[in-house]
């Protein structure tokens, strides 16, 4: 909740008034001198050397779970995933517990700068009957000053969630970016009884089966608030779009039209969803207004039109059409006008995904080495390869909410993987792996 409010304030502050900057300071980095430290978007960005000292227990029950080391390790694991930090190994640390014995938050700054650490995280915790209270502080070791502190409460059982919050705060305090650690990636996967929609956390934890369809499923889509999950299921024998209300645990069948019914993305404002339907004779793209149930047809062409996605401002739609004779990526405005083709390299280009930053459209293209992922700008220029055949075949790109990562399905040697690719370093991390075939991805907002 706290984080969401901050994000909302950040957005408004920038647009509405001059003093927004002060709000940002007050909310994001309470009790600290404030500025955004690491410009992760600068072209010369280098990973920031960060150390997380072992947490000191300041009271309570014996530390049987080994939290003293568990917290720094778990937090470091989260931060390492972002590709922004170079986490220093604790074996390099010079500062001893003895030198800071009296005060756990005493920092021997030269001990850290000597080993090349620019930022230091220290933590303490108290354990009482399964409950944990912990405080962390972040230091700029070069300036020898504290930049952030916060206290957390939780349980030993819920320690992973606590570490996630800590990592999120560290990331936000040092880079000003919204943490992705609580975002989820939904995908379809075959099961012994059919196929289901699953979701997995950004860090590869928390795999969960979201549906019980016992039938073919395709194209999971999150609503912007994460409350609804829409998808296509063949549970009734033919394809229809379903929406699951994850909060109230209610499922609706939304489009029981003749022929194809494919779920497409929700609009950025959550008011509409895109669909591919063949109810009017062949596959066309439609938008469905959630509040009224009004269906509006956007494409009119005898060719296949499929796989639409929104631009982040909701003003444009990218989609696949074979109107030129082979599947290619097209862009049109949100009313279906001004259709123009943007992909010209290659004879088979599909699965467009528009970056939340607006400047790139990712898609998959059939190459000599099987399907691989590329990005291009919305004008159809500046084509760049993201994946290569070395990692297998890559399909179905999906952007992270901050546009800094792409999730994709990778296939190699009978294994199906969900991978996350950091766009700054093109480093790939596997977050899920199965011998069962996986399909269509969506990243929660």
């Amino acid at each position, binding site marked *: 909740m706290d984080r969401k409010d901050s994000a909302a304030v950040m957005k408004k502050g920038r647009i*509405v008034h001059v003093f927004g900057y002060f709000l940002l300071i007050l909310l994001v980095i309470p009790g600290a001198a404030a500025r955004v430290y690491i410009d992760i978007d600068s072209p010369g960005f280098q990973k920031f050397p960060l150390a997380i000292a072992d947490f000191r227990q300041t009271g309570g029950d014996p530390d049987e779970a080994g939290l003293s080391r568990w917290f720094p390790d778990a937090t470091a694991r989260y931060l390492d995933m972002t590709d922004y930090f170079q986490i220093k190994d604790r074996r390099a640390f010079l500062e001893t517990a003895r030198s800071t014995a009296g005060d756990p938050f005493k920092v021997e700054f030269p001990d850290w700068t000597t080993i090349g650490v620019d930022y230091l995280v220290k933590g303490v915790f108290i354990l009482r009957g399964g409950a944990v209270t912990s405080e962390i502080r972040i230091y700029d070791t070069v300036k020898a000053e504290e930049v952030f502190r916060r206290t957390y409460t939780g349980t030993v059982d819920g320690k992973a969630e606590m570490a996630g919050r800590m990592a999120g705060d560290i990331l936000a305090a040092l880079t000003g970016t919204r943490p992705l650690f609580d975002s989820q990636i939904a995908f379809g996967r075959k099961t012994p009884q059919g196929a289901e929609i699953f979701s997995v956390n950004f860090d590869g934890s928390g795999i969960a089966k979201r549906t019980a369809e016992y039938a073919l499923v395709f194209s999971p889509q999150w609503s912007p608030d994460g409350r609804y999950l829409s998808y296509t*299921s063949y549970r009734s024998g*033919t394809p229809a779009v*379903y*929406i699951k209300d994850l909060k109230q645990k209610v499922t*609706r069948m939304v489009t029981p039209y003749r022929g*194809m019914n494919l779920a497409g993305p929700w609009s950025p404002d959550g008011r509409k969803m895109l669909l591919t339907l063949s109810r009017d004779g062949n596959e066309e793209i439609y938008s469905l207004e959630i509040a009224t149930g009004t269906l509006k047809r956007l494409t009119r062409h005898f060719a*296949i039109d499929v796989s639409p996605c929104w631009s982040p401002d909701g003003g444009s739609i990218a989609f*696949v059409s074979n109107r030129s004779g082979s599947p290619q990526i097209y862009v049109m405005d949100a009313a279906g006008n001004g259709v123009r083709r943007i992909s010209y390299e290659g004879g088979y280009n599909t699965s467009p995904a528009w970056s939340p930053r607006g400047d790139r459209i990712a898609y998959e293209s*059939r190459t000599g080495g099987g399907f691989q992922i590329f990005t291009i700008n919305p004008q159809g220029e500046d084509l760049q390869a993201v994946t290569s055949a070395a990692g297998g075949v890559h399909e179905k790109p999906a952007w992270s909410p901050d546009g800094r990562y792409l999730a994709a399905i990778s296939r190699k040697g009978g294994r199906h993987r969900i991978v996350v690719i950091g766009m700054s370093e093109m480093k790939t991390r596997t977050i899920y792996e199965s011998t069962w075939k996986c399909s269509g991805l969506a990243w929660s907002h």
Partner: protein
Amino acid sequence: MRKVALHACITLIVMIVSLMMFQGCAKKPVVQEDVARAPQAEKAVQAPEEDQAVREDTGELAKLGKTVPEEAPPPKSGKAERLGYFVVSTPDGDYVFYDVHFDFDKYAVRAEDRDALNRYAKWFQDNRRYDVLIEGHCDEVGTEEYNLALGERRADAVRRYLVDLGVAAERIRTVSYGEAYPLDPAQTEEAYAKNRRAHFVVSFEK
């Protein structure tokens, strides 16, 4: 010293003004959210026994389709084997419908399949109490969603062919399974060619 005091004073004013603005604009979404959610909670308290109905009335999705069970019925035991043909047994004997095949990324009926389709059309003319479901399938090479569309085009191309030869349109249903049910799971050109197909499922009238 005086400069520092002045600085502190300005900073304080700025902070106060900022906080006031924060109250004014930043809190709004939170309040709106509460208002939007309140009626649901109220109704749930009033009529807990009509749980399903309450959900139906208050949801943001009320205008969309209809509610269905959270879980679909589990599948009947035994997995149907996929074959490249379909045998229909009639009082006059068995009749075999062979799959018809397609080129990569194409859905035009091939010349070599026309004779077979002509025979099938005649069979449907002669056996008017039978209906058919035409399944459209693809190889695994393409993209899943595009293949769903392509499979539909293939099934539809065969349907149109039969309709043009006089089979009543209402006797023919189509469904696309895209690349989900390959006949041959091998990753070879030969297998892909087998998997790009339209498959017939013929049933006695319903």
